[in-house]
């Protein structure tokens, strides 16, 4: 059997934070004792980073738009094509005029038929290019949310030429500038981090005791970026709920895990069922 390409569904789901709790805990326990597993996770994270270098988001989205359009409108394009080829038989001059027009007509058709097809946002523009943008328009509550693990963090590191998406266990350096983003199907949330010194930093909301009202169902960057200090690791948490909550409920359990280095890296916050949590650990 060719071992060049591997696939382990549980490991993939673990990285996606899309795994049931017992399986997630089993993998977490295994990570501690199994170096091969840790290496494999690191390989997957690196592969994720390489993936977006090779297959950028904007390029992929425009390719599948075009592909989907061509599939759905094959008949129309063939019809236009056949008119063009019949004109060719009449006159070479017509060919010169019609073929550019055909191209323009086809392009126009693509634009008209396709302009509102996808629920695209300028997410990639926000994330990859713009750290300081703050969007004051709060999305209205019209989307059906996903059930299950439905909130997650995304963290990007500012680079010279392009920004780099960081994953769980990604390696970073002191003074790296990062941009924290969140995706949530739930209404309220809190973003904070615990570093290896046990220090808890609240990133969002700032200056209030209650969870923030979130922009739902789209990846949203915070309105500021964050410079890392020299702590050996820092773990970023997103906690969400459909109900408004006092952040002390979360900070209390965060304090409990901040007293133990291993817990800080691996343990989930002990929260009631109505909360959803996800985290990203960055290592120096």
């Amino acid at each position, binding site marked *: *059997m*060719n071992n*060049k*390409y*591997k*696939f382990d*569904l*549980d490991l*993939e*789901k673990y*990285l*996606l934070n*899309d*795994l*049931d709790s017992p399986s997630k805990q089993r993998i977490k326990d295994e990570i501690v004792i199994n170096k091969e597993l840790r290496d494999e996770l690191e390989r*997957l994270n690196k*592969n*994720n980073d390489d*993936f*977006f270098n090779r*297959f950028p*988001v904007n390029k*992929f*989205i425009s*390719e*599948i738009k075009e*592909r*989907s359009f061509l*599939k759905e409108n094959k008949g129309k394009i063939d019809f236009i094509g056949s008119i063009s080829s019949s004109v060719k038989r009449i006159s070479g001059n017509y060919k010169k005029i019609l073929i550019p027009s055909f191209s323009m007509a086809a392009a126009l058709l693509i634009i008209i038929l396709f302009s509102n097809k*996808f*629920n*695209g*946002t300028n*997410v*990639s523009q926000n994330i990859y290019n713009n750290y300081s943008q703050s969007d004051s328009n709060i999305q209205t509550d*019209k*989307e*059906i949310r*996903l*059930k*299950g*693990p439905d909130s*997650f963090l*995304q963290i990007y590191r500012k680079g010279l030429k392009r920004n780099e*998406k960081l994953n769980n266990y990604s390696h970073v350096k002191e003074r790296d500038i990062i941009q924290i983003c969140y*995706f949530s199907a739930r209404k309220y949330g809190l973003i904070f981090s615990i570093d290896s010194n046990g220090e808890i930093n609240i990133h969002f909301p700032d200056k209030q005791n209650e969870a923030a009202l979130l922009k739902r*169902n*789209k*990846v949203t960057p915070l309105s500021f970026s964050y410079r890392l200090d020299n702590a050996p690791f820092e773990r970023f948490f997103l906690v969400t709920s459909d109900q408004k909550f006092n952040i002390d409920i979360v900070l209390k359990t965060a304090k409990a895990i901040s007293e133990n280095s291993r817990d800080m890296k691996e343990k989930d916050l002990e929260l009631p069922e109505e909360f959803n949590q996800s985290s990203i650990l960055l290592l120096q």
Partner: protein
Amino acid sequence: MKIDIEDYYIRFGPMVHRRCLFLLKDEDRAYDAMQEVFIRLIRNKDRLTGKYPSSLLFRIATNVCLNILQSDKHLTEATDDILLSICSSEDIESRYIAQDLLNHIFINEKESTRTIAVMYYIDKMTLKKIASEIGLSVSGIKKRLSKLKENLSISKGIYLE
């Protein structure tokens, strides 16, 4: 249900690509298959009410790749590896049996049974894990596999463990 395909690509693209690469063993075909997966995702967006969206994408990716392999006229490295996975042996007789199994899976069985067969014989998943991914009971999975074996043994005189 409204979905943001860009967000789904950012989140699940690498996993989908790795799945396609695992089954197809070819970068270009895997990329092509990945595009098809996301197009199908948009068309099947109403099915995104399940607990774990990665499971749906995994199943779509598996089916897309099986469709691509089915349309291959000649054995490729991908189908060869699948055969080896099924029979875990390189002897000629086992490979012919596995080839027949593969043909049978591709042509005669339902899409969901094909996915179950791949998960069992190629991904080596347990029945419990398959059941949780597919959304059937363990006994339902056993029934499908048992029926598959029965169909094979009746039509080909092939016996599987």
